[in-house]
């Protein structure tokens, strides 16, 4: 394989791993202000897989594609600091309120325009936890997909040999490219940001960011150097069917949100005796947990 065009699908998410008391609003939605926005962890594994492909494939490039508000450009910069060549930010009011179907549709429109050889994505995002977007993108583009990927075993002329991490073991598969690969957290952790790249790309910006403060030193620098410009696309730039975007294109309706608070104050210790097991069964059936 040569000159492979690799695109990483990434998402900026609220950091749900260290939630404090104010992580949820009283209405039961995520209080985004209280949680720092981070690079979705498994997307970082995906980025590492893409960068390691770039290390091994002559002339390969890695770009990040993300959909989100303007501040999502942060993760594109972060990816550039770690070795990505650049990125695409899909941003605009038309995309707001997208569920996984609308998201994968928007991403697939952008990907058609980019035309990558390999698409790598994290298995799932820590905010929605659906693991649907990667596979849906593959379906929409009519590409083969390898999910739960852990390691690229071999790169052949027109295919990849990939080790998958499954529930009860591992599996090695070969897949022709173009293809979509979704990556598990068990894959190699992402390489750190690189000092020189941070200094070289810290002023990289999307056009709306430049427009927000056009006279700032960073914006002037970004405007003068194409390598520092993050591609920013609105809906119209990717030729979509408007009906399939954003809220309109999202069949998922949230009916009700329940805030689950664990009530039990003390732990109960059960032995492996028949008597204890029977008692537990009775209790679980009575509480409708079972049956």
């Amino acid at each position, binding site marked *: 394989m040569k000159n492979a065009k690799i695109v990483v699908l990434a998402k900026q998410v609220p950091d749900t791993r260290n939630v404090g008391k104010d992580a949820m609003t009283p209405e039961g939605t995520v209080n985004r202000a209280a949680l720092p926005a981070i690079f979705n962890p498994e997307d970082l594994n995906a980025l590492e897989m893409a960068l390691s492909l770039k290390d091994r494939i002559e002339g390969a490039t890695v770009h990040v594609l993300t959909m989100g508000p303007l501040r999502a450009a942060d993760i594109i910069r972060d990816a550039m600091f770690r070795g990505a060549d650049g990125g695409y930010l899909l941003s605009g009011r038309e995309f707001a309120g997208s569920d996984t179907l609308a998201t994968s549709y928007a991403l697939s429109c952008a990907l058609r325009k980019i035309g990558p050889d390999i698409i790598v994505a994290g298995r799932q995002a820590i905010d929605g936890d659906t693991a649907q977007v990667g596979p849906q993108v593959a379906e929409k583009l009519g590409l083969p997909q390898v999910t739960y990927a852990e390691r690229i075993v071999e790169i052949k002329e027109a295919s990849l040999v990939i080790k998958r991490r499954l529930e009860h073991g591992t599996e090695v598969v070969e897949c022709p490219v173009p293809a979509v690969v979704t990556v598990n957290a068990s894959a190699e952790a992402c390489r750190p940001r690189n000092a*020189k790249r941070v200094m070289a790309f810290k002023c990289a910006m999307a056009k709306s960011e430049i427009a927000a403060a056009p006279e700032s030193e960073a914006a002037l620098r970004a405007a003068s150097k194409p390598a520092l410009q993050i591609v920013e696309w609105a809906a119209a730039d990717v030729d979509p069917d408007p009906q399939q975007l954003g809220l309109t294109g999202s069949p998922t309706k949230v009916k009700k949100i329940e805030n689950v608070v664990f009530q039990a104050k003390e732990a109960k210790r059960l032995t492996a005796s028949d008597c204890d097991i029977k008692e537990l069964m009775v209790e679980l059936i009575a509480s409708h947990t079972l049956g």
Partner: protein
Amino acid sequence: MANFFSDNKDLQFHLQHPMMRKIVELKERGFAEKDLYDHAPQNFEDAMDSYRRVLEIAGEVCGDVIAPNAEGVDHEGPRVVDDHVEYASGTVRNLKAIVDAGLSGLTLPRKYDGLNFPLVCFVMANEMVARADAGFENIWGLQDCAETLNEFASEEIKQKFLPWVSAGATCAMDLTEPDAGSDLGAVMLKATWSEERQTWLLNGVKRFITNGDGEVSLVLARTEEGTTDARGLSMLVYDKRDGGVKVRRIENKLGIKGSPTCELVFTNAPAQLVGDRKMGLIKYVMSLMNAARLGIGAQSVGLCEAAYREALKYAQEREQFGKPIVRFAAISEMLTNMKAKLEGARALLYETTRFVEIYKQYTHISHERSLEGEERQEMKFYNRLADGFTPLVKLFSSEYANQLAYDAIQIHGGSGFMKDYPCERLYRDARIMNIYEGTSQLQVVAAINAVTKGTFMEQIGRYAAADYCAEMQPVVERLKALTAQFAEMVERVETVDKQTSGFKDLHARRLVETAGHIIITYLLARQAGECADYGRSARVFCNLAEGKIAEAYAGVMHSEAADVALYRVEAAE
């Protein structure tokens, strides 16, 4: 998810020092490279922003990679396989992370692929690495050897070695031999010029060489046949790829176990001469040694930070008699003193680093063009301060590293004696710090001139003349009284020493430490003016200083000439 830079306000405070503006201007030569490299800064603010961002990367690598590996590395240690060192697996992972993050060649010029960062940033990264794993700090920190090449080697040697160091090659400085430790003038390893191979060839044995199997080694060797002292020694650089050096064994040590301490056998190992012949020890090792001492200062402060944090965490978690032990006065006082020593040592570390930095930058500039009169004056001024302060920071911080590691175990009680907590490793790792790169006793020998020639007293005078916030006035008043006592002590020692030689040697440590205690208190008081949080440490350190100086004062003022004989132990026949 730990970041040893973001979580350390004290470290961030020192990056903001007003002298940074001058340092950055000097280091960047007025930002001459801003259009030549895409990673070169445009101006002072841009440079500072880059330093912060890169130190955050270093902090992340330290917190997320190096620190979690420390226990495994301590346990596994390096091995000798086929005459070469094989690092512990954690060390290999650490080195990969460092190379990926581009944290090699931190201070080297951009034309050799370095980051051209000020020494202050290198010392900060050094400190964070040591906090994560003091043993690994040796391997990473030895990249400082490249600075000696940068200062003294030919362009050809620089072209060959410096970009390699920037790409992650590790270094070693091969000085010590079985019969030449503190007394390096006795080095015997032979360098002979081979007409046939047109290179120097090294033959002999080196011992106690940290990271002795590193890719780039600076070797102190005897080029002048028939000589026996320092004047016959030169500095050479050896490239591991050329072969000729075998690792005979790795020492089994008390601490810093991840850092391979090697015995090396040189057999016709080819090497290139660095700088001028016969200047090896007199000039180049002295420069190398000063940099290394500052490095150990940073390593020690990093260990102090780790020890203080371990102790504080345990004291807050551990409950006895129905409350966390931090709420007992005896524990609280220990922790308060630990913090004051930590912040005091760090204040001295960065003050010294700034002095060294300015003097070094003028030295580099003087190789490019002749200095203006005023610049020459400044270079001399900072050179003198750097020479006095470097052994002082090595002395204080390495002793504090030991004291804090000791206290950290004490606060852990019986648990601290077990292998279950990191504090036992810190205790073992700290023990070498007041020994290598010159023992504390030798730091006193190196610093005593700054007492008798007035360097410390003049600098104390400058600190005293500065403005302090109202809250610090009582501290400043006490410092003036302590300074008067210091002057009395110096006068008495010099007077008695004129009649009885050996009196100054007997009291040298008391004098040097007294100067250090006064200087550190002034530095903390000055910091309190900028950030009120330091007021507490300044007052606490002043109390410590008063106690220590009272003891030293009594030791000197009550001492008679006869004490020279009283404390003399005769050598066995």
